[in-house]
């Protein structure tokens, strides 16, 4: 039995292992599919839908859809780019994203995705929701104004740290990240060294006393769009 299969992404023929997802196969082949909630070391759960591709004509989240022999994947199409833009627009208006003073600005994956998609401003009206900040922990803080409900902290705390400090509560616009202690983050088992404290794609969960360490111009996405590293590896 062959250990590799053949498939195409945007017309480019690539080889993949049968146990890979579309996203993993694309990464390995140097084709960047935009994503927000996905992170290599965490179990993918397809929550943000930014990585949605057309797989043999049907929309599927690339981070959870396994590859198959002869699969035809479309990712970089006007329709899917528009769909991704709409998701990013909604994430911006549904939270309070003040990039101008955010500690994560320049290293933020949400901001970087908006830059990559060339978004000057979201098309929807801003919601200005009322959200809570929890600074009770000595080394880590949660600013829920910036949370995009990707679930990385939830799975990192549960699957990597083995502590289940974070969990989602509520539904729809009331959905938020809660912690497993009534008085707040400071009373949980979380430490500043935990993986869960370092996986947030935005500035929602940040380690204290680490802010603004890199000057403007030297931050991760100041000059190169998000995904450039994957695309550069594919051109070698």
């Amino acid at each position, binding site marked *: 039995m062959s250990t590799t299969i053949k498939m195409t992404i945007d017309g480019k023929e690539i080889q993949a292992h049968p146990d890979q997802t579309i996203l993993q196969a694309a990464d390995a082949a140097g084709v960047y599919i935009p994503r927000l909630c996905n992170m290599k070391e965490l179990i993918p759960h397809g929550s943000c839908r930014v990585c949605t591709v057309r797989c043999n004509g049907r929309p599927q989240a690339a981070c959870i859809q396994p590859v198959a022999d002869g699969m035809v994947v479309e990712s970089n199409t006007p329709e899917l780019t528009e769909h991704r833009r709409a998701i990013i627009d909604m994430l911006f208006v549904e939270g309070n994203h003040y990039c101008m003073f955010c500690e994560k600005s320049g290293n933020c994956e949400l901001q970087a995705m908006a830059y*990559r998609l060339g*978004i000057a401003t979201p098309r929807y009206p801003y919601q200005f929701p009322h959200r809570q900040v929890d600074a009770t922990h000595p080394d880590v803080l949660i600013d829920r104004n910036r949370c995009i409900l990707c679930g990385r902290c939830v799975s990192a705390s549960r699957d990597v740290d083995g502590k289940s400090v974070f969990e989602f509560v509520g539904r729809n616009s009331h959905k938020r990240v809660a912690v497993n202690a009534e008085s707040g983050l400071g009373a949980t088992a979380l430490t500043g060294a935990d993986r869960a404290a370092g996986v947030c794609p935005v500035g929602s969960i940040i380690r204290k006393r680490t802010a603004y360490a890199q000057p403007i111009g030297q931050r991760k996405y100041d000059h190169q769009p998000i995904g450039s590293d994957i695309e550069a590896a594919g051109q070698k």
Partner: protein
Amino acid sequence: MAKPKVATASLAGCFGCHMSLLDIDDRILKLIDLVDFDKSPVDDIKEFTGPCRIGIIEGGCCNEENVRVLRDFRKHCDILIACGDCATMGGIPAMRNTIPLKECLDEAYLNGPTVYNPQKILPNDKELPLLLNRVYPCQEVVKIDYFLPGCPPSADTLWQALVALLGDKPVELPYELIKYD
């Protein structure tokens, strides 16, 4: 042929975007060759003298005066640009949007730790424009044609956008000129 006219205004902003416009260095001499300024803090003309090609708006709308000025700009300008994060998303002033207006005023004029106000007066002079219930991004008040994000947008961003629009070309900003901070 007369030079096209440009008007600018700072609404609920900090004048940082205007400072960024001045930060185009010696290109400011080229700018003066390209355009005349109409209503603007740059030349201190208070009211429009006629129609303008381009209006640049810094800041969102936090009071009724801002709304009046913004509508006046829409009426007089062919192209209206929302310039900077305050104009496009409310910016720092919009941080009050999650707090009721009365609570904001009480904190600023009555309860704040450094407030000295023995007569407990909230500003209510007729000369003062009424505050809106919240801060509104410009596109929620009038139609906006172009958005330049940034706090402030860099001098290069402003220059490239202006030169493109004055030359009747589309505004196509490279990756490094679209920034939200």
